[in-house]
């Protein structure tokens, strides 16, 4: 038994919340050896992070409570250690990196200070710590390591910040590294790099890695074994291959099925008169060129996917088309009228045609309005659409249309899950009977299974109502099943524009190819092949 590096036995943790006691994890057990990578796979609310928090002593008690179980590190039960001994374990024997490095790094201290602190906390003297910090920064591949030590977290890019986190975590060569969604907020290309770095370091140090993720691709890329969690319960465990190829539990099956990028690709209809015609739109913020002359056409009922990494200008484009921001130059003709020269009154009329669904429904729905108020607000603003007497019936109709029920009308957004909230946001957009909906990362924040459902909903609306979509995403697989045309953006420029098949099967630009190959495939075999190809390319 004691020969495992880490062993979690029959762990149960509960939390006291507003809605009563929540059993965050119930009776879960798993183990991890040196040099091995174990993935805990689960969607939000599955309790996948709870066991790691218990291992790191990060559960706030109250409201949390560990009701049963033990966590053995080399056979020693961590729960039985004195606080002092327990603290000595953290950082030294077990280290952890987190999903959002910007908020997990202290914003007011330099990264050098923070790395050195990890060392000095466990007894290193200042000089050693300084030298070691520099070595670590160099090792994780931060450019200009010496100067970078004096910089603050906000001065780095997202990928670099995660590298800093890794440097800090590995400062004391821990036996175990817990990585909680380490690449979730990163662009695909950066994600690949960070995962590669993790693997390299694991090989160097022989540590065990516990990776917590919702992404099957990440599991396929990095893990040896995987445990799947649903609602606090461990439903399936095994090697990555076994679980993917031969899932036993229905939940696992559902997860695997929901992974995007496997359906039929759309064949766009023959080109008609474009409903939206964008020409040479430019926008700068200070010295930063957000859009460098963007032009494209959108046909009625067609879906244009806009894909690009952060900073590519795709969100700016959305805001400008909706006049939430003013362009510096360019035109955008909607049914023959230039959107950018409309007077406020004309704009008000046109708002009905153009609607938007935002990335984060938690933030785009006013928390103090009921669902009914949220949806019917459209008719308060545009009273000529619908007489007040019919509002209730129409809201019910819309809710059914997006897969919710009329009984949800009186509730507040926070009572719904993320996917349900996004459905409400879509219902709100539909209330104005628009002809174009711009979806800005509308599914990025959602779990995979929910993502699939929302996309299915959007697809249905397109087919039934003939609505055109501009669908902005940072992830290529997501748009594969849904888009007619794909526009790839990089640093304010369109680098590639074509039908979905052209872009996915015969990309013309290196950048597109890089994006495609950096994307992680949930199938471990496919992903292994991708990886081999990538390594080969890198070797050349």
């Amino acid at each position, binding site marked *: 038994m004691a020969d495992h590096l880490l062993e979690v036995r029959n762990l149960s943790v509960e939390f006291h919340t507003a809605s009563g006691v929540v059993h965050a994890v119930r009776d879960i057990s798993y183990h991890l050896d040196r040099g091995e990578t174990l993935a805990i796979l689960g969607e939000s609310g599955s309790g996948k992070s709870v066991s790691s928090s218990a291992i790191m002593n990060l559960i706030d008690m109250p409201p949390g409570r560990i009701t049963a179980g033990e966590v053995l590190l080399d056979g020693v039960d961590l729960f039985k250690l004195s606080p002092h001994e327990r603290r*000595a374990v*953290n*950082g*030294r024997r077990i*280290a952890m990196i987190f999903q959002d490095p910007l908020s997990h790094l202290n914003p*007011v201290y330099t990264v050098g200070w923070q790395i050195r602190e990890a060392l000095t*906390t466990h007894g290193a003297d200042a000089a050693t710590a300084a030298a070691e910090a520099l070595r670590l920064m160099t090792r994780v591949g931060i450019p200009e390591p010496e100067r970078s030590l004096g910089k603050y977290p*906000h001065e780095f890019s997202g990928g670099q910040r995660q590298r800093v986190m890794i440097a*800090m975590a590995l400062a004391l060569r821990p036996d175990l590294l817990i990585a909680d969604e380490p690449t979730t907020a990163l662009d695909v290309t950066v994600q690949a790099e960070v995962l590669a770095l993790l693997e390299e370091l694991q090989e160097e140090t022989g540590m065990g890695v516990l990776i917590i993720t919702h992404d099957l691709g990440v599991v396929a890329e990095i893990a040896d074994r995987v445990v799947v969690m649903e609602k606090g319960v461990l439903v399936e465990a095994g090697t990555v291959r076994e679980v993917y190829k031969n899932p036993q539990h229905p939940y696992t099956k559902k997860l695997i099925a929901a992974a995007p990028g496997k359906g039929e690709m759309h064949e766009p209809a023959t080109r008609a008169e474009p409903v939206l015609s964008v020409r040479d739109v430019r926008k700068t913020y200070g010295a930063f060129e957000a859009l460098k002359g963007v032009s494209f056409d959108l046909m009625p009922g067609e879906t244009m996917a806009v894909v690009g990494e952060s900073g590519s*200008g795709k969100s700016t484009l959305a805001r400008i088309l909706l006049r939430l921001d003013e362009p510096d130059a360019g035109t955008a003709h909607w049914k023959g009228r230039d959107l950018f020269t409309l007077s406020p009154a004309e704009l008000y009329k046109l708002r009905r045609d153009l609607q938007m669904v935002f990335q984060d429904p938690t933030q785009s729905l006013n928390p103090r309005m009921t669902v009914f108020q949220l949806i019917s607000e459209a008719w308060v603003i545009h009273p000529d659409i619908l007489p007040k007497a019919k509002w209730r019936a129409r809201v019910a109709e819309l809710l059914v249309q997006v897969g919710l029920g009329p009984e949800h009308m009186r509730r507040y957004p926070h009572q719904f899950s993320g996917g349900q909230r996004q459905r409400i946001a879509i219902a709100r957009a539909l209330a104005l009977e628009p002809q174009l909906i711009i979806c800005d990362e509308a599914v990025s924040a959602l779990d995979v299974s929910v993502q699939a459902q929302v996309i299915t909903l959007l697809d249905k609306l397109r087919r039934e109502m003939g609505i055109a979509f501009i669908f902005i995403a940072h992830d290529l697989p997501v748009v594969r099943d849904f888009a007619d045309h794909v526009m790839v953006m990089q640093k304010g420029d369109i680098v590639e524009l074509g039908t979905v098949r052209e872009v996915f099967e015969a990309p013309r630009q290196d950048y597109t190819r890089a994006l495609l190959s950096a994307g992680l495939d949930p199938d471990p075999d496919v992903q292994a092949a991708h990886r081999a190809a990538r390594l080969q390319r890198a070797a050349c």
Partner: protein
Amino acid sequence: MPLANPVFAGHNSNQGGGMIPPPGLSEGAMLKFVRKRAVASLISLVGLIVMVFFLSRLTGDPAALFLPVEASAEMKQQFRELHGLNDPLLVQFAHYVGDVLTGDLGESLRKARPALDVVLEAFTWTLWLAVITMSLVTGAAILVGSLAAFRAGGFFDRLSSIISLIGASVPDFWVAIVAIVVFSVNLAWLPTSGTGSLLHWILPIAVLFIRPFGIIVQVVRGSMIGALSSAYVKTARAKGVKSRSIIFVHALRNAMLPVITVIGDQAASLLNGAVIVETIFGFPGVGKLMIDSILQRDFNVVLAAILVTALAIFLMNLLIDLAYALLDPRIRH
């Protein structure tokens, strides 16, 4: 969770209360910011002077107060003539502005000496009182608030919140008088009032201490609870950092921004003079001077006092901006 677009990150910047310099500025822009603030303050200052000048003159005739009730009409007339109070208000104002621009803030009617001298003398005392009190308050409130936040809901938290609640709820003149009765008269530990030795400072400072302490403790506590539950504290715990260091090194510096704002507000009200404490303890500060001067319709002193304190508050606000930048590198550049 939200994938913040860096383009909008600058755009969304908080300009809370016009206090925090917008982020994303270079060092040179900081100077520009200071200059902009100075201009804004100058406008406010001019507005203040205009307002005080005319409002105070609506409160009555200084002659009636300076001279005894039996004074004849001619004496009053002659007094007004002597001090230029017979001119139309606008003419008086023009004279005043002209004098101020040449650095002359006028004479005190009551004291027959330059108003600025009178004010600066008093302001020195107020400044010291404010600086010492605020230093003590800040130190104590941070310590107590942080510890309370660390074990939120615990015994110390409850105790400190009750104490700070009482502190924020007691009329200060009441405390002042009771303190004199107890500590000076009955126990004879401290002098009742006045200035002279260091001992004289204890009671006024102690009384002034109470309310800002009560308020700041609560702000520190709230802000620290937020900071202690933040992600970077989790990181620090994962690194095995000691609790003391987590509180006072990791969380505190992050929690200080809202605290500094409140400290600024409280310090500003102390700089405006602690009228009641000054009155009771016979402390020659600017607050009592201001009230006495308006009671006596000694307008030049009132105006000079307003001018001096407003300038001091402006400088303090600049210092606070500087402190923001010192504490938070995101604001700094």
